[in-house]
């Protein structure tokens, strides 16, 4: 990593640590996937390398689809680190509970639109939580953390992606989640078209039925 100056730890995530730093005079984020002592070395290296290489590629693809993602400045495979643009803003996780119902609706529809554009372009995010969405001062929504994403247009992958988003809304925003998810679906349908979107939504129900002890399955059993 050349010329990365003094780093300060911004967030210690489970999978990677985020450092705020400067690089050639810019404020940057250094995302370093640290060694995981619990995994066998070989497996750990494989996973960290894979994600370090794939994440920037997916972010780039998402950008092509019209989804704002931080600009990638450097990928350092040896250290499993990515240097990217620092996006200033607030996590949607913090924004959602503190705005009016109309604003919640508007934000969630826009999130649905972004996810729709991304899926239409053949990218699934893999971890669509509201902590991974940043609202900037100018009102743009950035998606970050593509480490678990995939390049795929499979219905199954799209369904899982939205299912995870629904689950994240349920666990983090259990008071708002129903309205929020409905708005996300609305935005999503507006991009993919009612018919394609409906197929994905049906997939979500199918995925949920595979899980254990689900409400809906009580009726069918």
């Amino acid at each position, binding site marked *: 990593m050349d010329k990365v100056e003094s780093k300060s730890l911004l967030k*210690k*995530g*489970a*999978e990677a640590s985020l450092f705020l730093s400067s690089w050639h005079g810019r404020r940057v984020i250094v995302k370093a996937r640290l060694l*995981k*002592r*619990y*995994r*066998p070395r*070989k*497996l750990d290296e*494989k*996973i960290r390398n894979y994600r370090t290489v794939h994440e920037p590629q997916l972010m780039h693809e998402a950008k092509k689809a019209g989804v704002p993602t931080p600009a990638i400045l450097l990928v350092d495979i040896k250290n499993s680190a990515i240097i990217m643009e620092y996006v200033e803003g607030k996590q949607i996780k913090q924004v959602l509970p503190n705005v009016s119902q109309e604003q919640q609706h508007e934000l969630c529809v826009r999130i649905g639109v972004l996810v729709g554009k991304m899926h239409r372009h053949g990218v699934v995010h*893999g*971890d*669509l*939580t509201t*902590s991974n969405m940043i609202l900037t001062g100018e009102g743009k929504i950035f998606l970050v953390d593509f480490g*678990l994403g995939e390049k795929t247009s499979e219905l199954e992958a799209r369904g*899982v992606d939205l299912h*995870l988003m629904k*689950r*994240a809304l*349920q*666990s983090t925003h*259990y008071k708002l989640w129903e309205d929020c998810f409905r708005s996300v679906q609305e935005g999503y349908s507006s991009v993919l078209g009612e018919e394609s979107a409906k197929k994905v939504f049906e997939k979500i129900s199918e*995925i949920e039925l*595979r*899980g*254990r*002890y*689900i*409400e809906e*399955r*009580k009726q069918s*059993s």
Partner: protein
Amino acid sequence: MKPDNKYCLGIESTADDFGIGIVTFNGDILSNVSCGYIPEEGGIHPREAARHHTEATDKVLRQSLYKAEVKPKDLSLIAFSQGPGMGPCLRTGATAARALASYLGIPLIGVNHSVAHIEIGKLETKSVDPVTLYVSGGNTLISAFDTNRYRIFGETLDIALGNCLDVFARAAGLKHKQGMPLGAVVERLAAKGNKLIALPYVVKGMDVSLSGLLTAATSLLRRGKYKLEDLCYSLQEQSFSMVTEVTERALAHTEKQEVLLTGGVASNKRLQQMLTLIAEEHDAKFSVVPRQFASDNGAMIAWTGILAYTHGLFTPIEKSFVKLRWRLEEVDIPWIK
């Protein structure tokens, strides 16, 4: 019997174990007797398991009362696992519980089995507000408490971790050894393996998928190219890494200070070691439920029944039907503020 004490008898019968435990209202476990159904071959047959439970009820009940030195008339509360689990098995325990409660004229309380695994872990390890990894033959859940309920942050998208290990063990022709569960047999073999064979590593958000890993491992087993020890090692390393990774994600997300490992697979030393490492990484305290309370047992049902009853809950007999698919996050938890 101390005159100032009250006792709860808890009945567990969700799957292959039938257990009865007696616990005092201040959390002393006086007895915890279990009797497991071991199928001659294959997995648990619900009807056969239920037949086993019916036959075991009398013996387990007597032993539990005898060990606790408690007479039926001294009991104040009957708790039973109301779900989730296998219908015929659940009904056996529920029938016994209703009979006891109405004969003795004392209240009945239906308990959620998943909540009980968390509560017994908390009681025994003195954890207060942990991120819990609950892994057993039927469940793989990552949960933490938030506003009235245990929220599910991650879970398996298909089969449970214990189920994955058991099915693999049976495919390899392994048998229960002197009451040692199949998972423990796999653990012992895995300790002798050292070659990591690549298997699908599937983490989606905070969820995991284990069915692909199981299919891959069993088909490699049939090919006969690899040592069974190495396959057990690879199966454990990769499936445990997956659940550890998602537990760490939940820990980072919730910023809790404690990690609790509970359920039947909690006895696995290697899994304990992995979770210890992530707890250290996040300055959290790691606890694991003691072995005798790791797999399904009556004491955990009794204790959770006490928590619910002392916070105003009870289950009228006409509402005591079993709930086969009762999810953890559907249960209100009034005893945590």
